[in-house]
């Protein structure tokens, strides 16, 4: 069944919000050399990535976040303006799924650190934010929103006259 107008509006708003949050989170991490170095320290504290790759990943991850956020926003706006465009639909579906997947990875890493008894920073939106139930709930809410966004991106569209 095609989604109604309220449903589609909510999905569009969530896409723009998630895209904006991803771009903001990325900008905080790469805005200057000190922020980049601090993010590398936060990333290394998880002890998931081998030390020799930490600096590279600390640079690539925010860039990927930035691109993903931008693609999600552009696709969401594009689909609103040109509903029948197949390329935009593919881009919207792909970016929605990737946002979901990245949030699953982020929450998984935080849960693992918390369960391992590590008192470390989350690294989500810059330094000075330790992993806590608050950060888990916040990212969990974002994941719920992202799943909704991904699900609606795969629903059949209402036929236009």
């Amino acid at each position, binding site marked *: 069944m095609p989604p109604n107008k309220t449903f589609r509006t909510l999905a569009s708003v969530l896409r723009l919000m998630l895209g904006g949050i991803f771009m903001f989170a990325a900008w905080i991490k790469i805005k200057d050399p000190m922020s*980049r*170095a601090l993010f*590398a*320290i936060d990333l290394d504290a998880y002890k998931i990535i081998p030390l020799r790759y*930490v600096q590279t990943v600390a640079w690539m991850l925010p860039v990927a976040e930035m691109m993903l956020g931008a693609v999600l926003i552009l696709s969401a706006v594009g689909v609103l303006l040109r509903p029948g465009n197949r390329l935009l639909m593919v881009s919207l579906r792909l970016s929605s799924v990737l946002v979901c997947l990245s949030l699953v990875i982020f929450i998984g890493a935080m849960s693992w650190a918390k369960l391992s008894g590590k008192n470390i920073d989350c690294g989500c939106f810059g330094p000075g934010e330790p992993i806590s139930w608050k950060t888990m709930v916040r990212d969990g809410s974002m994941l719920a929103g992202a799943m909704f966004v991904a699900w609606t991106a795969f629903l059949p569209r209402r036929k236009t006259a």
Partner: protein
Amino acid sequence: MKLLAVALAVAFPCLAQMMIPEPDKGKALGSPTAPITIEVFSDFTCPHCKHFHETELPALMRDYIVKGKVYLVSRDFPLTGPEHQYSRQAATYATAAARIGKYEPVADALFANQDFTKPTSWVVNGQVWECVAAVLTPAERTRVQALAKDPGVVAEVERELQEGLATGVNSTPTLVVNRGGKRFPIPSTVDYSLLRSFLDAPK
């Protein structure tokens, strides 16, 4: 002045992020005019602190402190619990030694003899004073023993602990890097190469 700083930091946690509590010069290394100040919150019974003191600290000394790039301030953060029953006593002696300019040799001795597997170690048998006294002259011993009973020294240890708690220290060692008016708590597990890239990064 120090008490006012702590009171403000406890009352307004956001201020704790901006203020550098006045350092005890006896516990500081390097030039106070260095562009970066690093506060090290540590405990003499903590094995990670021993590792930091014996490996990362000499490297920091060589690469940054001697060159006037970093001013390093040691802050005692005595832990509590079954393995830390002599933490506060060690911190008190070290703080007393700092008052006569002997913090570094006392800290070196306490960390060098921190071994939970040896019954002869002060962390096991509680002979903290014997470990401290070994690196002091007879005259210094008398002064340090007297200072260790001084309410000012006892209060200083407690104040540093409270400063750490106000800053958000929840494990030791924690480095708090002060750069450009901002304070950045750095995890104790930080690799030295990553710490260097942060210290070397332009503002």
